[in-house]
């Protein structure tokens, strides 16, 4: 009797589980089919959704994104927005999620991608993006962005994305007090840099703060030296194949890089870039080479004042040049709500959209006609530099100049170089990696 009861119970359980499984399967099917129904509508129709994919989940950047979404909702109350942000340092996780979605033919309506090779060598080359030339013409955007920037988001004469912001990565941030106390000037050339560094070291201050727990901050120093030694045209030539990576000037750059590393803090490998910036803020170190998101970190997180507590200057011998990182949004193929997505891109490209987003994110607008009064002192300076730059150069460390595969290998080679200081080894690794493109 008892055994039979038990058996019954098991049967009931089994039946329950089976039904649960069947229901789960059905309901997911339902969801999928109803999604299709609502997405197939034209832009502006009731129930249309735009899914915005990014890795903007940190302080500042998230505020910027949400403000931008609010602005869009204000203009298009009939379009739903789905904020599909994926958290994780520098977009590593987001990029993995994006890759699996794109390969599974389930692209988001639009997604964040750095202008340059990160866009071109992957998604454009894979034939997953729609050209936006008509969109640029219709919205009269061709002369609103610098030509170099439009080139950066173009491939074979087709434009593939809309830049929303600009970051600059050839900047040295320095502690003003440290320089004043020691009575020294901020270096503009490599000779000056090494002279200053010797003095600082004699005064017991670490000249250069580096946090290379992730290796890109070190790569970023090297790319700035390359830009200085090669000039913007030959620097770009490295990636078009016109200049070889074993060019004597590349070797010289690597040597200079090694020399600069002699002046860094001992515990660099345990620090991330924020920790390195903190050394500068505390006056233990004098300078750090970092993109201008460091400004946001100094003023928002550490409550320091621009040009009072900390100052900024371009990295040695790159004055007038602008190492550019730009976040852009494109239009993937095979999405169903194309018109609504274009409406979002329109807002993104507008002066109003860019001025809503950038002051919060701490970047500057990609448009040259944005409203300067909305930006702080650093932002205004950077905007002027951006408009009047002799040349824009794409950053390697942030995926604009070269494909991700090259960057991965370069980061590895730099990581090895930081301890082994073998110039030939690094140059060889770069030459080998450059067979990628």
């Amino acid at each position, binding site marked *: 009797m008892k055994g039979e009861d038990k058996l019954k119970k098991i049967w009931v359980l089994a039946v329950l589980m089976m039904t649960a499984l069947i229901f789960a399967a059905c309901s997911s099917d339902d969801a999928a089919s109803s999604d299709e129904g609502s997405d197939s509508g034209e832009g502006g129709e009731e129930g249309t959704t735009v899914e915005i994919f990014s890795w903007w989940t940190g302080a500042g950047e998230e505020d910027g994104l949400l403000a931008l979404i609010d602005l869009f909702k204000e203009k298009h109350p009939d379009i739903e927005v789905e904020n599909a942000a994926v958290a994780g340092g520098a977009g590593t996780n987001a990029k993995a999620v994006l890759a699996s979605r794109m390969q599974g033919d389930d692209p988001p309506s639009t997604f964040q991608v750095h202008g340059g090779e990160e866009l071109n060598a992957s998604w454009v080359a894979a034939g997953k993006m729609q050209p936006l030339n008509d969109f640029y013409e219709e919205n009269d955007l061709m002369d609103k962005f610098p030509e170099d920037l439009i080139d950066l988001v173009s491939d074979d004469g087709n434009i593939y994305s809309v830049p929303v912001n600009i970051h600059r990565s050839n900047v040295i941030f320095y502690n003003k007090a440290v320089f004043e106390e020691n009575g020294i000037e901020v270096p503009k050339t490599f000779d000056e840099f090494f002279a200053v560094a010797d003095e600082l070291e004699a005064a017991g201050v670490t000249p250069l703060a580096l946090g290379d727990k992730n290796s890109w901050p070190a790569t970023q120093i090297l790319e700035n030296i390359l830009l200085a030694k090669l000039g913007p045209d030959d620097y770009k030539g490295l990636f078009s194949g016109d200049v070889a990576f074993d060019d004597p000037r590349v070797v010289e750059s690597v040597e200079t890089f090694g020399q600069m590393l002699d002046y860094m803090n*001992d515990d660099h490998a*345990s620090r991330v870039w924020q920790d390195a910036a903190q050394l500068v803020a505390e006056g233990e170190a004098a300078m750090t080479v970092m993109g201008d998101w460091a400004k946001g970190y100094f003023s928002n997180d550490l409550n320091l004042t621009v040009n009072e507590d900390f100052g900024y200057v371009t990295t040695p011998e790159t004055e007038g040049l602008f190492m550019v990182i730009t976040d852009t949004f494109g239009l993937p193929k095979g999405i169903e709500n194309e018109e609504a997505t274009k409406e979002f891109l329109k807002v993104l490209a507008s002066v109003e959209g860019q001025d809503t987003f950038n002051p919060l994110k701490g970047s500057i607008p990609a448009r040259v006609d944005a409203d300067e009064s909305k930006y702080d002192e650093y932002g205004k300076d950077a905007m002027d530099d951006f408009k009047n730059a002799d040349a824009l150069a794409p950053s390697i460390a942030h995926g604009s100049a070269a494909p991700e595969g090259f*960057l991965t290998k370069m980061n590895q080679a730099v990581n090895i170089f930081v301890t082994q200081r073998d110039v030939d080894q690094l140059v060889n690794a770069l030459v080998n990696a450059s067979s990628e493109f």
Partner: protein
Amino acid sequence: MATKQKTKQKFSKDQWLAIGFLAPSILLILVFVYGFISWTGYVSLSNWNTIVPDFSFAGLKNYLYLFSDFRFQSDLRNMLFFTILFIGAVIILGLGLAILLDKKIKGESFFRNIFLFPMALSFVVTGVVWQWLLNPSTGVNNFLKTFGIEPLWYTDTNILAGFQWGQIEFGVPVAILSIVVASAWQMTGFALAMYLAGLRGIPEELREAARMDGASELQIYRKIILPQLRPITASVVIMMAHISLKIFDLIYAMTGPGANFVTDVPGLYMFETTFRGNYYAHGAAIAIIMLLAVAIFIVPYLWNNRRADS
């Protein structure tokens, strides 16, 4: 007619029930474990090293690339020394503590819990905590600095007793030791619990008999108790080996690849190479190599168990 009846009743109701229950999970395991392993193996033999899938046959190209790669060679060195040191530390500490606790001390359960608690944490948490503890410029290290001691813990790029082997220096990377400390801190409780159970399972009469024969305590442990704990040691080694060979989260949170890749392991390399560099075939090859490394430990163990069963 009769034979047909017989075949129909080959399985009892209970057995049918068991098959019904097991079938879904067997099916799922077939697809999601063995299917995906085969898929990974297939990808590792392809040319898929960009974001665009390319399944053309590449032979062993990806494997050859890896074994000539500085980073992967460093990974194998790190994996080897980490596994040896980690398992060694866990066994010695676990056994030592178990023997002490077995002396029926006061507050035994209190100590047992203290040693077991770290196991409740995730490796990520352990990594973050130990990163704080060992950071060269914070906490206890600031205090040590006032005495002129500046340990670099996990940022040290030195390699102990190293000799050049191919491209890499072959020896124990100092930074690995800090990871061994953190991981042993987490897993010693497990070994302790296993050994304690084993010690309790040894009948008191055996010791009594040995004492009657005039054996010293040390001899009792060496000749009677430790040999009986051998199966437990085997289980602990297996459990720890698969953790150490696959380790990712602890190192990712604590040190990352480390300068000169002194704390890099295949797991980290696989993650970065696949999801950052889009080298899918390389990543798949690393995954397969990790699988084989674990199999080297697991298969003989399973084999042994099977033999013991039959």
